[in-house]
């Protein structure tokens, strides 16, 4: 390249108006840096929402009976769930696999009544996969071997005006449609930090749900992975190994409203990126066209000497490539520190919104937002900068190629 006169011509042409070139590079760099930041932000948001959904009990994915998907009934159980659970727990990529069985229940204490979805859980695994139950403000969480006890959310306790040790009358509909009741002692009260979420929590042992409903087993197995990026890869492997009557649902299928929120943000982010890149594109096209108009006579001379159009296009492309590469470098210099800062230290929305915790769709969201940061920034910065510059150079290059040598030389004669 360095031996090519055309390449030297391209490089030195950029240095001819060094101030304009530097401004162009800074413009490309700044625009692309903002795009990197925005893309890092939405990537971080998707990961945060996925992890928030996983940590709030949904897991990165869940194993459910096939018929559960359209109606989401609590009546189904997974055939052979213990074998599936054992295989998942033996897998090193799985951090925790926790079985659950749900039943719609009516809780009563004295004259107070509350309708709730009672969840039967594995007392040892549940706190590992569900951060909603980790903050016990009174009593304790469930232990293996617990019978006829329950742990409820603080908002449920307040509504029923109960405390630890109080008996709760629980009424459910069994597998034959008959009403069944039991007295459960309140063993613990949990507070998630969100009243909305606290009002949904009523946990019992898995066996308790079986005793009450007459339906043994688990209706779902929530799986939290060691590395969230394995959702598609490992999830695909698991799904392929499952029998036909059992399905795997990823977090976004389980929480479509949350996923839709992320997708809306992603669409906005794409729109922002498109707007910024359009502004960059027009700015560079304008600067490049001005440069071509200034060099019209020069292009006329080159054409007169017999320089073919494709060689001129190559020179213009080389100029755009150099400009874009330098712009990509500036984008990294500006975008990487900003994205790294938000990825490392985060933005505390709890402070900004004056809220201790943020809950959405039964998910407890970390109030400190973290961007995504990684090697992906490097190719993306150069791709955005070089693509924008090359595309914006097309019209000026076409204009340069079309320069009629006789006219160009006559103009300044």
């Amino acid at each position: 390249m360095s031996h090519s006169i055309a390449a030297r011509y391209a490089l030195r042409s950029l240095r001819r108006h060094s101030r304009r070139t530097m401004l162009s590079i800074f413009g490309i760099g700044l625009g692309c840096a903002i795009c990197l930041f925005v893309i890092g932000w939405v990537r971080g948001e998707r990961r945060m929402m996925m992890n928030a959904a996983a940590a709030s009990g949904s897991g990165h994915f869940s194993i459910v009976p096939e018929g559960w998907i359209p109606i989401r009934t609590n009546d189904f159980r997974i055939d052979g769930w213990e074998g599936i659970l054992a295989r998942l727990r033996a897998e090193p990529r799985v951090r925790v696999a926790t079985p659950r069985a749900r039943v719609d229940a009516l809780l009563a204490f004295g004259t107070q009544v509350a309708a709730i979805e009672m969840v039967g859980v594995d007392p040892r695994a549940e706190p590992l996969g569900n951060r909603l139950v980790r903050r016990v403000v009174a009593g304790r969480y469930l232990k293996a071997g617990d019978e006829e006890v329950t742990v409820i959310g603080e908002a449920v306790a307040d509504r029923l005006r109960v405390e630890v040790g109080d008996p709760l009358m629980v009424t459910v509909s069994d597998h034959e449609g008959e009403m069944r009741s039991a007295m459960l002692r309140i063993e613990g009260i949990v507070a998630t930090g969100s009243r909305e979420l606290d009002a949904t929590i009523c946990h019992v042992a898995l066996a308790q749900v079986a005793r009450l409903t007459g339906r043994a087993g688990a209706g779902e197995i929530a799986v939290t992975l060691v590395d969230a990026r394995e959702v598609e890869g490992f999830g695909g492997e698991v799904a392929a190994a499952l029998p036909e009557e059992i399905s795997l649902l990823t977090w976004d299928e389980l929480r479509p409203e949350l996923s839709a929120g992320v997708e809306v943000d992603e669409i906005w982010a794409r729109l922002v990126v498109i707007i910024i890149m359009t502004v960059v594109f027009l700015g560079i096209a304008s600067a490049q066209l001005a440069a071509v108009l200034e060099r019209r006579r020069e292009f006329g001379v080159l054409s007169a000497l017999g320089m073919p159009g494709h060689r001129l296009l190559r020179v213009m492309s080389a100029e755009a490539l150099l400009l874009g590469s330098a712009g990509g470098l500036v984008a990294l210099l500006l975008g990487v520190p900003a994205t790294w800062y938000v990825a490392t230290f985060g933005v505390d929305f709890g402070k900004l919104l004056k809220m201790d915790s943020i809950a959405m769709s039964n998910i407890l969201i970390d109030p400190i937002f973290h961007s995504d940061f990684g090697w992906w920034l490097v190719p993306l910065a150069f791709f955005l900068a070089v693509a924008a510059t090359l595309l914006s150079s097309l019209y000026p290059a076409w204009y340069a190629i079309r320069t009629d040598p006789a006219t160009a030389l006559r103009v300044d004669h």
Partner: protein
Amino acid sequence: MPPLVEARSVTKVYHTGNVDAPALRGIDLKVESGEFMAIVGPSGSGKTTLLNMIGALDVPTGGSLTVLGEEIGGLSKRARAELRLHKLGFVFQAYNLVPVLTALENVEFVLELQGVGGERRRRAREILAQVGLEDFADRRPNALSGGQQQRVAVARAVASRPRLVLADEPTANLDGENAEMLMHLMRNLNSDHGITFIFSTHDSRVIAHAQRIVRLEDGLVVERKIGEDKSGHEA
């Protein structure tokens, strides 16, 4: 041997808005290989237009113009560019060197465009030496005098070993001494290498070097005569 250039009733009309401006109105001309010919005439007489036609920079509106066996009017844009690159050389009034390239690189660029490989730098240096600028090879045009720039332009024009070099008012921006030096240089290249030169001028000192003079007025050839050729070279 067929003439290098043969023009028969060549016309050129420029269309400016709704107005037709005839620049050439029926030129008949033959140029033989090895000639050192001047096209003279007042401004607006059609000298540059005729040179542009012969140089395949433009095409005639009417008539027939054959250059090096090629009918210019029948060539595509690409074919004309090929003809210019491989068989023609140009020297412009305003030198028109590429300002960001050194003298050597300006000469080398044409060779690169021609696809000359490893020997291109050596050849470019040799040509610069022939025009007496070997010591200025690494200077950019803005560090050269007008006369030196025009000598680099001549070196660039002959670098591709063309059969025909066209020079449009090559001495117009030069002082007397430099103009004289340039004409000697071009005449030497003409006599030593057999390169045909056609140049336009209205400088009487330059006209004196021509073997043959064609005078244009209002787009027509009004006079043809044998020049005095004061250069001392044999015709």
